[in-house]
């Protein structure tokens, strides 16, 4: 019986303002057959540093986080909590 633990990007979702919702799956396999899967999530906002992100997430961020998107996000953040 061989147990294996694999971490993989399970989902990358891009939202209209450029936020990237990332789901990282931890998969436990027994003799190659998946027996458990758990989720860990985080959000990459347009002003976030992506240096430590998975390569696929980095590539999505590079494509999505254009100057226009970053500028719009900066304006959104500047106006946050001003009800």
């Amino acid at each position, binding site marked *: 019986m061989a147990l294996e633990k694999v971490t993989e990007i*399970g989902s990358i979702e891009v939202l209209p*303002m450029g*936020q990237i919702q990332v789901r990282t799956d931890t998969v436990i396999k027994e003799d190659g057959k998946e027996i458990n899967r*758990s989720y*860990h999530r*985080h*959000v990459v906002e347009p002003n976030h540093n992506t240096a430590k992100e998975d390569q696929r997430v980095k590539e999505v961020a590079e494509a999505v986080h254009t100057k226009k998107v970053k500028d719009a996000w900066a304006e*959104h953040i500047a106006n946050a*909590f001003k*009800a």
Partner: protein
Amino acid sequence: MSGIIADNSGRSSGVIATTVVSDPTYLQFPGTQVASADVNRLDDYEEGTFTVTITSTGGTITIATAWDTAHYIKIGRLVHIQGFFSIDSVSSPTTTAYINGLPFTVGGVSAEGSLSSSIATYVNGTLTGSPIPGGVIGYTWSGISYVKLVRGGADSSNNTASFFAAATAVGMGGAYVCSA
């Protein structure tokens, strides 16, 4: 596969349609949500964890890595979060403290509802006068993935960061509406 939901009188009250049912004991949703605009349709259920960091307007607040994981349950657009964190160290934190790392971005309920949720938060600082007088309220805002901590009670200022110190305990629990 589909089935009929019946109340305890035996009358059917609706039809449930699921995409995958491998065991009739469970209501199974796809691993990747298929969002529905139908306000009467439950389209997602998910449980998981997320990693929290705490930042401040000035200075730094560092969470102990053994105490930086929180849990979420997402039911449709409603995300319930809860976690307990311990501060490892600080370096002159000033003004407002923020809890970062929410698992889903906050959704706007309406144009007026961008200030969409309050997250109950407990900060048991180690400084004189702690816990923070008036308590702490966590606010979110449409589109973001963090919680802003402000003081409650008579002093509703944003000055929460200076109450954080090494060994401060932080509890957080509540729910917010996400975007999909």
